[in-house]
């Protein structure tokens, strides 16, 4: 098996970009990643890419150059970006290719997503009666979690305030104005207990990464960032997932728990070894619950962690150092790739005034409907 390195990374800033298509953002990111990698586009052997709302990702090819590269379009809900990275990782690890591109981009209309029940195998009445909203699921999951583990609404607000603080230092973030916890708490209630600024919003952006085998990375002198492990898991029995008209009464493990455990096993490290973590923060509650599901703390310990600032930059385990989905918004195809991009910058020491000093192991986890999670663990080379 080959070791895999991230040799190039490019991003089109997230946000709203009038006059640009989703594809434009993907092409920009791909050009930047290729340039950053030091190889020519003609030397990229394989590609995996996804977009949810902006067409087939392989539409970047005419704009990049029709080299005959094998391109596979990836569609895996909000975990599409993570799935593209995973596919490229497998391809190189298996020894089939020396270089591969993972690309994702999107441009969503304003407001919440409005998926079609039939695409999820659900009856039409589920949507007609007003239950086909991802926001309700996240709100109900954290509502129960707060009840079971004593998490306060103040902690929800602090997570969002941290996101906006980190976002204010991040050139690729969308929301770059700091906001304090009280303002977050007093913003419009969207889905109790979650207010407007606790939620991420659908947005626009593009990210591309170039992965390479160890041999190729050494030839190029690009061994700064190693992709130590990547794993994806779908929901097991008894997991509480989005768009579920019924649930079993027993609560079991979640796809995030399974994916994190698989990635830690492959990497041969544990949660306590991680220096920096990007976790899915569709809303503040998701970040809090994912801290425990990924193994960084026990259920309920988040209240103290947040009060003590342990997840802030400068804390023991900085979480979502670029402001996460809350500050960057969520272009579905690109979101999981953004997390890896941020970790690449952090491990290269290129994160400027949000740099986490001495970071060696960086973790990322993206979660998506209808219940899957993808994890990547990067190591400083």
């Amino acid at each position, binding site marked *: 098996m080959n070791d895999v390195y991230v040799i190039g990374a490019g991003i089109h800033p997230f946000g709203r970009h009038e006059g640009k298509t989703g594809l434009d953002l993907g092409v920009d990111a791909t050009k930047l990643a290729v340039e950053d990698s030091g190889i020519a586009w003609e030397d990229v052997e394989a590609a995996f890419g996804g977009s949810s709302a902006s067409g087939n990702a392989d539409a970047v090819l005419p704009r990049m150059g029709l080299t005959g590269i094998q391109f596979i379009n990836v569609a895996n809900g909000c975990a599409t970006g993570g799935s593209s990275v995973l596919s490229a990782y497998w391809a190189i690890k298996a020894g089939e290719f020396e270089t591969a591109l993972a690309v994702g981009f999107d441009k969503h209309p304003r407001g919440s997503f409005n998926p079609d029940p039939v695409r999820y195998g659900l009856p039409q009445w589920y949507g007609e*009666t*007003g239950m086909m909203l991802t926001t309700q699921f996240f709100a*109900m999951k954290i*509502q129960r979690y707060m009840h079971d583990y004593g998490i306060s609404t103040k902690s929800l607000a602090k997570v969002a305030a941290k996101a906006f603080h980190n976002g204010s230092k991040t050139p690729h973030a969308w929301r770059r104005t700091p906001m304090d916890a009280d303002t977050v708490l007093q913003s419009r209630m969207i889905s109790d207990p*979650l207010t407007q600024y606790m939620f991420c919003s659908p947005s626009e952006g593009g990210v591309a990464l170039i992965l390479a085998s160890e041999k190729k990375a050494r030839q190029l002198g690009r061994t700064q960032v190693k992709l130590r492990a990547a794993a994806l898991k779908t929901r097991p029995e008894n997991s509480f997932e989005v768009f579920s*008209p*019924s649930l079993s*009464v027993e609560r079991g493990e979640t796809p995030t728990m399974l994916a994190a455990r698989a990635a830690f096993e492959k990497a041969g490290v544990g949660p306590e070894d991680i220096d920096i973590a990007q976790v899915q923060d569709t809303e503040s509650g998701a970040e809090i619950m994912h801290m425990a599901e990924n193994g960084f703390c026990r259920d309920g310990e988040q209240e103290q962690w947040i009060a003590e600032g342990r997840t802030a930059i400068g804390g023991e385990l900085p979480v979502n150092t670029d402001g996460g989905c809350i500050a960057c918004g969520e272009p579905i195809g690109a979101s999981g790739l953004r997390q890896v991009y941020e970790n690449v910058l952090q491990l290269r020491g290129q994160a400027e005034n949000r740099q986490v000093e001495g970071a060696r192991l960086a973790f990322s986890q993206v979660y998506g409907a209808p219940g899957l999670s993808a994890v990547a663990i990067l190591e400083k080379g």
Partner: protein
Amino acid sequence: MDDDIFISAEGGKARIVAGKHRQTGQVVFPRPQGTEEEDFQRIELPLSGTLWTYTVQRIPPKNPPFVGVNSPEDYQPYAVGYIQFGDQVMIEGRIAGDPDSLEIGMRMDSVPLSFPTPDGAEMTTYAFAPANGSRS
């Protein structure tokens, strides 16, 4: 709505119809149709359970898929929650009445709920409502 999702019951309540897997005993809702249908026995759930979690839809959902009134001026927020029926199953549904009176653990009855659509018609569905005396 499909008659086989819920049926009317005594005292103005609604009885939810679910499916019980013939081998595993697992209860699911709605009862699977088509090729999976024969694996599930039709069962009727009790008329009340307890509130496991909930939220309130404060902003109007998009149409499609939502068919209720969603204009900003006329929209009425509604609660949605999961109700646990003993050790059988939890069912997700809308919660009738005042969304600000809910607490996890409350006893809830299953009831029919009709809500207006923008064309003046109504859609009827199952829902849940705090049982009498549930607010102690």
